[in-house]
Each structure stands twice: as structure tokens, then as C-alpha cells.
């Protein structure tokens, strides 16, 4: 996997990716099992960090983190280590992120995956989706399928709402100063 796609993936995780980068990443992910694997690992760790950011016990978070990684194959740890500064944006606290990852990389390999059953129960497979790309959000209704990895329909929905927002503002130029039609005309015009 090229450095360029790693950068894009990191930008996605940080919420900084542009639509163009997202599309390129999706295209590449369809061709590259390696990229899909890395993407999945990133999300597993991101999910663990988010859970920790909500005030959970650090040790428990570490256990969950490594249980998820073990359940998912445990690959790509070096990539995670080198990119950990990017994950700060995903965690509620940058300090917590560094602590969790720092300890996990050093000590996590010795942990038994005793939480594997819990993780498996929280992972629900949707038709046409990879098992590790779909999970139940901790704070979401229990029966809700929430993907960690956005599908094309998710990206299309976000783009469509951006377009709707731009049009609505364009029709109300006094709200924001009147240049909003520019966004509609230039919307993904490449």
C-alpha cells in the first residue's frame, strides 16, 4: 500500500479527508485487500479510543482494544504505531490516545483475548458487508447497524446533503453573504 493511500486513510480517520480523497480511497479499497485490512484495524483502534474517551477504565479499554485487534487478526501494528499521532483527533483526549496506544503496543501482545466473545457479540454482519466493518455503536439503539467503514451510499448521502445545504443557503443569500451558488455550480464539477 502506498504512502499516499496511507496518508489519505489517516486523513479519513482524522475527519480531514476531502470527498475526492474519499472516492479515491474507496476505489483503491475495492482493489486492495491490504488497504481494507489496514482500514479495518484503524477503525478497531479508533473505536476503542472513543470508548476510552467517554471516561471508561483505562485497563478495560486496553483489554477491549487488544481483544478487538486479536479478533481481527492483529496485523498492522507498526502502521498503527507510526500513525498514532493522527488518532489523537479521534480520541476525546490526545493524551489519553497516546497513553492507550503507547501501553498497548508494548504490552498488549501478552494479553489473552478473553473479551473476544464480547466483541463478537457486538459485531453484526450486514448483507454485502465485511464482518469487521459493521458494528453496533455503544450509544446507539441496540438493533442499529452502524458501519465503521463508510459505504458508497454513506458518502453519496453526505454529498447529497451538502448539496442540499448549499442550495438552501444560496436561496437565502442574506444568511451568509450571497456567494453560495458558487458552491452549487462548482459542486464536484471535476
Amino acid at each position: 500500500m502506498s504512502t499516499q493511500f496511507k496518508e489519505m486513510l489517516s486523513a479519513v480517520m482524522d475527519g480531514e479527508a476531502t470527498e475526492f480523497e474519499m472516492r479515491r480511497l474507496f476505489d483503491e479499497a475495492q482493489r486492495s485487500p491490504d488497504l481494507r485490512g489496514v482500514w479495518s484495524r484503524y477503525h478497531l483502534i479508533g473505536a476503542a479510543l472513543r470508548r476510552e474517551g467517554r471516561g471508561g477504565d483505562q485497563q478495560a479499554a486496553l483489554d477491549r482494544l487488544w481483544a478487538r485487534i486479536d479478533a481481527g487478526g492483529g496485523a498492522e501494528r507498526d502502521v498503527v504505531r507510526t500513525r498514532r499521532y493522527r488518532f489523537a483527533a479521534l480520541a476525546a483526549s490526545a493524551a489519553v490516545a497516546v497513553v492507550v496506544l503507547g501501553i498497548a503496543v508494548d504490552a498488549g501482545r501478552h494479553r489473552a483475548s478473553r473479551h473476544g466473545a464480547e466483541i463478537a457479540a457486538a459485531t453484526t454482519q450486514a448483507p454485502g458487508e465485511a464482518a469487521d466493518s459493521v458494528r453496533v455503536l455503544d450509544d446507539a439503539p441496540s438493533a442499529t447497524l452502524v458501519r465503521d467503514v463508510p459505504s458508497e451510499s454513506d458518502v453519496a448521502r453526505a454529498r447529497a446533503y451538502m448539496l442540499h445545504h448549499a442550495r438552501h443557503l444560496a436561496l437565502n443569500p442574506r444568511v451568509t453573504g450571497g456567494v453560495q451558488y458558487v458552491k452549487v455550480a462548482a459542486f464536484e464539477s471535476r
Partner: protein
Amino acid sequence: MRRWRFAPLAIVLLHGAAISGQDGPRSPADWLDSMNHAFVERNYDGVFSYFDGDDLSALRVIHAVVDGVQRERLIHLNGTLREIVRTGNEVVCVVRPDDAILKLEESIPSGPFFQAFTRTFDDVSDNYRMTLEGEGRVADRDAVIMSVTPKDDDRYGYRLWLDRDKSLLLRSELIDGKGTRLEIFQFASVAIDQPIDPSLLAARAQSGVGMSRVALQVARRDDPSPPTAWRVAWLPDGFAVAARDVYRTPASDNSVNTLMYSDGLAAFSVFVEEMPKNGAARMVSRQGATVAVTRVAHGPAGSTPYLITVVGEVPVATAQKVAESVRYNASGQ
């Protein structure tokens, strides 16, 4: 790679000072107000660039007031052929039949769009510090440079170049808290208050090129708050509801609750819909300064979950905080 960054600038800020325009000294709020009037009341024909953080577009805008009716034509000059023609409150988008924008329209709420309630620029000053920085030059025209700096981290700032004589916006920059320019709009050339040939305001007929039209309508609604049980529990200071409605998507006929909020300069929309049958991703997406954040929320007891999408020109953290605060309130209060 993706962003241009400001070099530190040694600028002597003229806090609260007024810079003379055609009608004498004006405060920053006066300049903003006259800019808005210039947009809708003046004739202008110009070519400008628009940079959204990723891509640079070139467009021509022709604007005139004919028999008291605002008419405007916006032509995309490179890439996909697109024209937007506005006559009063009617807007027609002229695009090629294969334009991706048409496919997106099938999945988004259709109009009519209701006119938003706006705040005055006096209110805007509660949340932004407006400063006249001096004078500059854009499109071979003298300009007044204004800085609009947010007083908190919940919104972006702006730098504006306004035509010294006509108050038309000649250049704008949308700037995040780190000084990164997220969007840039700038005229390369513009003629202001010159006669406009009416034929320039009509979409050009292109032989051999298919066109599709999408009509949008604006209707004034006196009550900005039709009943909806969805509430945003947290808003950045100064943001208030500007529009609120329930739309249906053409493709699925799903109803989508839409709420738009504005602080007078920035705006974001909140979309609430039933969870799609094939699920959805909790994600953050952005294009230029526009961010989209999604989350899942509980709806009425016993109902399916709902998908919340917040879209706007606000920082990701603000959009996420707004999204997390959206609640279903059965009492409608």
C-alpha cells in the same frame, strides 16, 4: 498539500476604525450591510475563481435588476458544463444529462426551499470581532479589507475585500482557527453598474448538448418553526433557527426533518431521517469548509432509530457537538 497556510502577517489593525467609502466613513457593520445590498441590487458582470481547498473553479457571474426583479446567471467555465439562472426566486440549474449532480438530487429532499430568517449584523458582532484592516486591490479595483474574527472556536472567520466605491465583495477567505484558508473566492475581473444585455441573463442553448433543468422555488413562511419533535439541545452562541421544514426525498419518498441554523454569517443544517434499511456509517466528511457529520439517535419509543446528519461551514468539533445533542422530544417543546 491540501491547504494553504497564512504566513504571519504584520498588520496594523485599525480596531473599530471607519474607512471612508463612496458615502463617507463607514463602520465594519456598515460595510457588511452595504456588501449585502450590493449583491442583490447592483449590476455586475465578472469572472472569478473559487478554491474549495481541493479544486480551483473558474466561473462567470452576470447579475442585474430588471424591472425590479433580481436576475442572475452563473456559468461554470471549466470542467462540467453547468449554468445556474436565477429570475427572482425561481432558480434553474442547466446541466448535462449525465451530470452527477442529478443523481444526487434523487436522494436529497426536494424543494421548495423556504426563505430563512436572518439576523442583523448588529447581532453578528456579538460573536465576531469585525475589524477594518486597511486597503488593498483586487481585480484592478480598490478594495477595503475587513477581518471578521470569531470570538470562540465554534465557527470560522473571514477576510473580506469589498469594493471601495461599490461595496461589492471582490474577494473572500474562509479561515479556520489555525489560520488555514478553507475557501477562497476572488474576482479576476468585474464590471460594476454597467448596462447588462438581457440576452446574457438567459441560459445559452447548446445544439447537440442535452440539458436538464431543475426548478427550485422559494416561498416565504411567516412561522419559521412548523411542528417537529426534533430538537438541537446544544447550539454555539449566537446560532438561532433560520429555517425548519419537513421534505420528502424523490427516490425513496422518505420524510426528512430539516433544520437550518445561522449566526448571521455561518450556517449549518441538521437532517433527521429514519435509519436506512442497509444501515449507515458514523462518519465525518468534508468538502472545502463544508463538513458533514452523522450519528444515530433514538426516535419515538418503539420506532426505528434515526440517522442525524449535520452539514455546515463550521468546525468538525462544532458539527459533532451539535449532532450529539439532537434529541427527540415527544412533547414537541
